[in-house]
């Protein structure tokens, strides 16, 4: 009964936050659009038509065309699938790895905690983008390599947060009780402690999804993302740079797609964080 009330309170607080609500609606719409990209795209995103090079936005090509005569709207719609997939998968993977390290470090303490957390500190000293870049240099190009590179850059953040949470709750009576009845460490860590800290971690996951999408776009912009001809938002922006004076729409629409998506996820994450940390509520 109490659980239901708390849940309802959380939903009510979230719905009262207009910015978070707008972000949620936007994020849901973007996810829906990406899922229906094949249906919604008016043209083939990789079909070249040299007679249609650098056409400005018109009825036939709502966002114009690129230097290979490809329809930009279709490329952006298809690009959303990759951006969202990389964003969600890399955060999921980074979260899982980070939480595992953090929970074990916080619960076990001692030398293991020191080794894990000092390694985490070193990884965290590198800016996310640079760490992603060097890992991608090691792994090479491809979607799953992109996911792994971003996940490695993100995991230390979750390790630090989950370790802190575990340390603050591992002295609770229910943990002592579980120990007393002979429950295994793994069951206590992942069956009892983890469910109590997962809320904060999921909120952080939403915020990091926004960052992951931005990092993916940046890596694609550098040329280390998906190899051509598959469309990526970062790749579209990079491609348009050469034509900023004659066809500025290429980079602008690509950039706008990244910005709106990241903004929506940030707004949702902010709204969720406000619920969990009332001190930050403005």
């Amino acid at each position, binding site marked *: 009964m109490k659980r239901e009330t708390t849940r309802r309170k959380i939903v009510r607080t979230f719905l009262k936050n207009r910015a978070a609500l707008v972000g949620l609606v936007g994020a849901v719409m973007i996810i829906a659009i990406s899922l229906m990209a094949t249906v919604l795209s008016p043209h083939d995103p990789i079909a070249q038509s040299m007679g249609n090079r650098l056409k400005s936005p018109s009825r036939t090509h709502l966002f114009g065309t690129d230097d290979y005569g490809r329809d930009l709207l279709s490329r952006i719609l298809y690009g959303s699938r990759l951006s969202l997939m990389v964003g969600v998968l890399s955060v999921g993977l980074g979260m899982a790895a980070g939480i595992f390290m953090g929970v074990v470090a916080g619960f076990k303490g001692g030398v293991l905690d020191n080794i894990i957390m000092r390694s985490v500190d070193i990884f965290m000293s590198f800016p996310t983008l640079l760490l992603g870049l*060097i890992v991608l240099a090691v792994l090479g190009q491809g979607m799953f390599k992109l996911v792994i590179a971003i996940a490695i850059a993100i995991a230390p953040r979750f390790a630090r947060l989950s370790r802190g949470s575990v340390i603050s709750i591992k002295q609770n009576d229910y943990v002592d009780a579980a120990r007393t009845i002979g429950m295994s460490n793994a069951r206590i860590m992942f069956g009892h402690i983890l469910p109590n800290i997962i809320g904060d971690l999921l909120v952080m996951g939403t915020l990091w999804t926004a960052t992951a999408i*931005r990092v993916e776009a940046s890596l694609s912009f550098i040329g280390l993302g998906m190899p051509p001809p598959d469309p990526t938002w970062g790749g579209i922006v990079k491609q348009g740079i050469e034509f900023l004076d004659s066809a500025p729409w290429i980079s602008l629409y690509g950039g706008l797609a990244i910005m709106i998506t990241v903004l929506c996820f940030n707004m949702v994450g902010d709204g969720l964080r406000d619920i969990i940390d009332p001190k930050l509520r403005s």
Partner: protein
Amino acid sequence: MFTYAIRRILIAIPTLLAMLTLVFLLVRVIPSDPAISVLGSYATEETIKALRHEMGLDRPIYVQYFEFIWNFTHGDLGRSLVNKLPIVQLLSGVLPYTLELAISAILIGSILGIPLGVLLALKRNSFWDYSGRIFSLVGLSVPAFVTGIVLIILFSIKINLLPVSGGGDLDDFGSRLHHLILPAFSLGIIMMAYITRIARSSMLEVLGADYVRTATAKGLKNRKVIAKHALKNALIPVVSVIGTYSALIIGSSVITEIVFNRPGIGNLIVGAVQQRDYNVLQSSMTIYASFVILVNLLTDLSYGFLNPRIQYD
């Protein structure tokens, strides 16, 4: 304070060593053979073997590691695998451009972001507050290359006021400044968004504190309460955040250098990744990592200076 500073500097040394180790290991697991990258896939077995020997790649990994650390501490970063130039020479040619970009972006972000954040807190829930908060949320969401492109379209293509690309002549201050304005603002706007947000929330928290209420209750003028009591305390978390976000800005400068086709370590790193020049890659990454350690060190020192209540033990 002096002991704290010395201790903090000493802690930075093992951190730097650990980072050097990480960079060394990451670069060593790159799947392709650097000797083949240099000679091309048609090279004979003998020439590849000879080059691997010349590059020291046939020696045990721990020997390569200790040599790397030893050389680094003696300022010898080796030579580029691609153009054979000493890496110190390559880095010193581009380092001033990266430094001026990162420092000016941090300064722009701090100088504009702190007063804006404080102002938004003082005008809480007004039109200006809402507009400022939307600006900072957009700033947090926009990648550095998008702000760069928008600025290029506005100031280089539309009104032809500032150059689109390049870093300017290294010996000509005016030319460098001219080339720096757009990239610095494109990064600075992002830094400003972060700092505005933190300065606003920090100022709001301080304005609600008991000692500020007491100062107002005893009849002090509002301006004096803000300037003498609230501002300094509100700035403490802002300083630590400037350090954290400076590392982020240093990372984003890689992208800005590409957008504006500026010389810099970022461009050097990307070139090294594409050409598999792992000597340049490891040295450039090491320099970046050292920057981050230095920024964190300076942040910690200034944090201790701003807040004397911090226990240095």
